[in-house]
């Protein structure tokens, strides 16, 4: 029950954020989608022991969050919520890979810990990038961008339908679940049999709804094509945004910025 409430909240909240007005929100969703993808690929392309080289990439989320008026606390909380899987897999690195990699005075750090930290950093960067994309572009915007980037139309339409009826179905599921919770005691009534018919019930309603929607579409002349009115237009700003970031990613992917700064500093001392 907690999960469904928080899911509902998350979708609604991210959706609300995506209707804000900011310089980032006004950019073409295609530009944001492409930049995000390049960002993710650049981040994961580092080798497993990389830490300092990854730090420069934090510039992207920092700029997007501040210029896009996104709530930092919320994003961090989301990050913590989904962290367990990465930790679960990553935690084996320090256990399995114990060879010392960095020695700093009395402190010996094994390669496992270095790669573990690297995994967490990658994780933080890639996850926030996805959340930022959706919070600044809106789901419909991303779908439109996908379609313009030649993703098959029926798939983009699927996504739109899914998103549209998610709200309706989550509300329906909540009602069903509330009824279940009210009538189950000591964990009884939460078993597989009950769940089977509960989900079956939901499925039956969904199938009927699918039929009614189809009817509604037929009534308004649906002939297999879904037309939308929205048009996208890439402006100069979109191109500057896109190529600016991509160039930046390429540079810091190939030149370890913190390392250079550090070398400079340690060279001075």
């Amino acid at each position, binding site marked *: 029950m907690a999960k469904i409430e928080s899911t509902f909240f998350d979708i609604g909240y991210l959706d609300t954020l995506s209707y804000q007005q900011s310089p980032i929100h006004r950019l073409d969703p295609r530009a944001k989608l492409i930049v995000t993808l390049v960002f993710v690929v650049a981040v994961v392309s580092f080798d497993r022991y990389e830490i300092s080289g990854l*730090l420069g990439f934090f510039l992207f989320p920092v700029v997007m969050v501040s210029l896009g008026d996104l709530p930092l606390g919320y994003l961090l909380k989301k990050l913590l919520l989904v962290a367990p899987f990465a930790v679960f897999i990553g935690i084996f690195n320090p256990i399995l890979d114990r060879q010392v990699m960095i020695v700093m005075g009395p402190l010996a750090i094994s390669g496992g810990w270095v790669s573990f930290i690297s995994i967490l950093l990658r994780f933080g960067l890639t996850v926030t990038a996805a959340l930022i994309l959706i919070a600044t572009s809106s789901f419909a915007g991303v779908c439109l961008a996908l379609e313009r980037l030649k993703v098959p139309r029926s798939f983009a339409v699927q996504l739109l339908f899914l998103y549209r009826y998610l709200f309706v179905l989550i509300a329906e599921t909540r009602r069903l679940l509330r009824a279940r919770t009210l009538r189950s005691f000591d964990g009884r009534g939460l078993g597989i049999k009950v769940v089977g018919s509960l989900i079956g019930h939901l499925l039956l309603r969904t199938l009927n709804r*699918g039929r009614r929607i189809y009817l509604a579409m037929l009534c308004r002349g649906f002939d297999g094509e879904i037309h939308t009115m929205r048009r996208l237009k890439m402006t100069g700003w979109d191109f500057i945004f896109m190529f600016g970031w991509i160039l930046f990613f390429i540079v810091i992917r190939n030149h370890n910025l913190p390392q250079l700064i550090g070398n400079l500093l340690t060279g001075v001392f």
Partner: protein
Amino acid sequence: MHMADALLSPAVGGAMWVVAGGGITYCAGKIRDDMADSRIPLMGVLAAFVFAAQMINFTIPGTGSSGHLGGGLLLAIILGPHAGFLAMASVLTVQALFFADGGLLALGCNIFNLGFIPCFVVYPYIYQLIIGQTPSRKKMTTAIIVSAVIALQIGALGVVTETVFSGVSSLPFNSFVLLMQPIHLAIGLVEGMVTAGVVSFIVKADPSIILAADRRDDQQQSETSIGKKILLPLLAVAVITAGIFSWFASSNPDGLEWSIYKVTGSEEVEAPEQGIHHSLEKLQEKTALLPDYGFKNDEAAVVPGPENGSGSTVAIGTSVAGLLGGALVLLLMVLLGFILKIKRHSRTE
């Protein structure tokens, strides 16, 4: 059981993206052929349904932990494999975007593990095989439970393989498999039982739903051969793309060689590799196109070597500098964030 970006290398992630993209394009084309049919909105609402149904969790008997509906198999049963795959792919896309379940690069892997496998491997080769020509309630239940278990086993194997091939995690193949498969056996059983319960509920309430799906498959008898038609080409594409990607990043120890080395644990692979890496390093240093690539690799390869004493001094030097520089960069960024935020607010007010 979602694959995560943080554990992926671009070669593996990219290859799986190509595979998922190919699957989506192929299925979208298929659906387009019989567009007039009511599956267009149905796919969307059923995808939303899977999403919602996954939030109904239930206690797994005897363990006290909870499971939820998988969805891929159920969608294939109701919609047929093509539409089912598209619907499942859209579920995973939304999860990647909104809940950071996995992430964008890992989306390809997840679509493959949780969509492609149930719809195009398990549905035609396990489910339909067990059901046969004369479906019955009992056969259906068996088919669903067996299919769910197998789908999840293959899916988990997919996660393991993708992780190991990416080489970000240190878990060797064998231990990872031993870790993942038993957990997913339990989950698969429960998932299968729930899916069977759902389907039998539906069949009782309105047999035409599943029957319609069966009839549709009769019409498209070729659907049993979809596995061959789509599976083999896509696998070939996957291997080729992975090959190309890792060739481009061949100095990257994240790549295939590293994990092969790790998995087999054999030293022989390493020796010739060293040579290739070494010359590539030289090349890179000259062109300065990917300087830290070669450098890092050198570091990783040299430092852990116990007999190599000189390696660690290099590591200390670079890492102290790296830490210092990193701290400074982070500090600057926090500052920048504040400044941007303040500037923006003073302008909007």
